[in-house]
C-alpha cells in the first residue's frame, strides 16, 4: 500500500466541548485523546449523542473546542482548509455547478492553469468512476453518485487528512457496500490518512485499521481497538464477528 509522503499524523489532545444548554452546561465531549498515524484508516463509532459529529467538526476546524486541541503533523488546527478534506453525509454539492465544476472548486484557489485543473478533475472523475458525467448537474445524480462527486471534490486539493462523517448513511445498502470497497481502493492507491465517523459498527470494523469506540453522556473515548484482520474483510468471518460483538457490547 502506497503511503502518501505528505500524509499527516493526527493528534487529538484532551479535547472537551461544553455548550450552554437551556438547563445548564452540556458536556458534549470530555477529554477525548487519541493518535492517528500517517496513512492510517481510523473509524470512530459510538451511540447517537456521543459527540462524534462534534468531534468531527472540531477536527475539521469548523468548531473550536472549549479545551484541548487537535494537531495535524504537530501543527494545531485552527480552521478549515484544503489540507483537511471533508465529506459530509448530505453531500452538500453546489447545485448550480456541474460535476466537473464541483470537483474543480477547490482547485480554483490554487495557482494551477485552466488546463491543469481540467486534467486533474478528469483524473479524479475517473478515480471515482464518473468520467462520463462531467457536465451533469447534481440534480440528475443518484445519492451514490453525489457522494462520489463529494469525495472527488474533497480529494482535489490533495488533502493530508480525509475526514468523513457518516458519508454512506444516506444511500441504500447495496450502494453502501460498493462505495466502501471503492473508498478502500482509493485509500490504498493514495495512502492518505483517513478518519471515518459512523454509527454502523459493521462498517467501522470493516474499514478501520483501528476503531475508536465512544460513549455518551458525556461524550468520551471508551476504548480503541486494533482490527487485526486482512482486507478485504468478510462479516461472516469469526474474528470479524467477535470484534463486532465486542464493540456492540460497549455501545449497546
Amino acid at each position, binding site marked *: 500500500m502506497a503511503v502518501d509522503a505528505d500524509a499527516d499524523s493526527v493528534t487529538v489532545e484532551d479535547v472537551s466541548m461544553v455548550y450552554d444548554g437551556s438547563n445548564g452546561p452540556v458536556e458534549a465531549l470530555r477529554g477525548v485523546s487519541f493518535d492517528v498515524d500517517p496513512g492510517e484508516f481510523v473509524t470512530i463509532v459510538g451511540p447517537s449523542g456521543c459527540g462524534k459529529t462534534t468531534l468531527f467538526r472540531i477536527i*475539521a476546524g469548523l468548531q473550536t473546542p472549549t479545551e484541548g486541541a487537535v494537531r495535524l503533523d504537530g501543527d494545531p488546527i485552527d480552521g478549515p*482548509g484544503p489540507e483537511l478534506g471533508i465529506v459530509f453525509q448530505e453531500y*452538500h454539492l453546489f*447545485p448550480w455547478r456541474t460535476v466537473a465544476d464541483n470537483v474543480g472548486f477547490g482547485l480554483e484557489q490554487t495557482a494551477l492553469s485552466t488546463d491543469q485543473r481540467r486534467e486533474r478533475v478528469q483524473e479524479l472523475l475517473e478515480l471515482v468512476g464518473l468520467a462520463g458525467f462531467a457536465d451533469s448537474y447534481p440534480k440528475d*445524480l443518484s445519492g451514490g453518485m453525489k457522494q*462520489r462527486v463529494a469525495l472527488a471534490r474533497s480529494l482535489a486539493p490533495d488533502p493530508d487528512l480525509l475526514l468523513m462523517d457518516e458519508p454512506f448513511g444516506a444511500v441504500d445498502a447495496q450502494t453502501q457496500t460498493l462505495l466502501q470497497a471503492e473508498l478502500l481502493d482509493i485509500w490504498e492507491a493514495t495512502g492518505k490518512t483517513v478518519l471515518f465517523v459512523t454509527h454502523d459498527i459493521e462498517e467501522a470494523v470493516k474499514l478501520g485499521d483501528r476503531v475508536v469506540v465512544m460513549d455518551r453522556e458525556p461524550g468520551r473515548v471508551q476504548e480503541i481497538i486494533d482490527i487485526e484482520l486482512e482486507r478485504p474483510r468478510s462479516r461472516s468471518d469469526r474474528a470479524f464477528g467477535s470484534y463486532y460483538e465486542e464493540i456492540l457490547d460497549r455501545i449497546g
Partner: protein
Amino acid sequence: MATDVSNELDRTDDLGPLGGAVEPRRLLLGLVGLAGFVGLWWIGSTLQPAYILPSPLAVAETVQSEIASGAMQTALLDSVVHWLPGTVVGTTLGIATGVALGWSRILEETLTPVVRILRPVPPLALIGFAIAWFGIGHAGAAFIIAIGAFWINFYAAYGGVEGVSDDLLDVARSLGVKRQTGLIRKVVLPASLPEIMTGVRTGIGRCWMLVVAAEIFGAPGIGRQIFRSANSLQVDRVIAYILVLSVMFLLVDTAFRLLQRRVLVWR
C-alpha cells in the same frame, strides 16, 4: 474498479427550444379563454353606449390610429425613459442592500428598525418628495418606480442570502475559500440566485403597474395618455393604452422567464 453508474442517472425532460414556456395544449386553451373574454366584451359593448364600453372593434381602430399618428410610440418611449432607469436602479440597490443585510449580522441588527419604519411607506406617498427633489417629469417618475423595485428585490435577496446553508459555506471554507468576498461571490450569490431572479421578475411587473401612477403628476407617457383620455371620456383610448401596457408587460415578463429558465438550468 470503476463501476457502471450510467443506469443510475436520472433523465431530464427535454424542454424544447422555448424552454417549455409554451406548451401546445396550454396555448390552445389560453386562446380559447381570450376569445371568450373578447366575445363577452363585444356583447357587452353592444348593450352600452360607447362612452361606457366601446366595442373591441372600436378599440382596435383606435390602437391603429394612435400608432399611425405616432402618439402610441411616443407615449411608450416616454414611459420607458423613466421605467427603465427606475427599475434598474431600484433593483440593483434592492439586491445589494438585501445581500448586505442578509450576510452581515451587524448590518442587519443596526438597520432592521430603519427598514421596518420605511418599508410600509407606499411609493405613491412619496410623490411629494419626488416632485420636490426631482421635479415634475421623468426623474420624479423614475424615483417612484425605483422605490417600487427596491423593496421587492430587497426582501427577495435578503431571504435568498439568509437561506444559504451553513454547510455549503463550511464546504467552501474547507476547500480554501476563506475571505468573505470569496464566499459571497462563489457561494452566497449563486445559491440565492433563484430567489433574487424571482424578485427581479416580480419587481419588473410591479414597476410596470407603477408607471401609470408615477406619471400622475405630470410625467409624460402611457399613464398621461390614459388620464387625458379618461378626462375627456375617450374610453376607447383609455382601453387602447391599457392594452399597450399589458402587452409590454407580457413581452418583458416572458423574455425574463426564458432568461430565468436558461440561467437556472441546474434546478
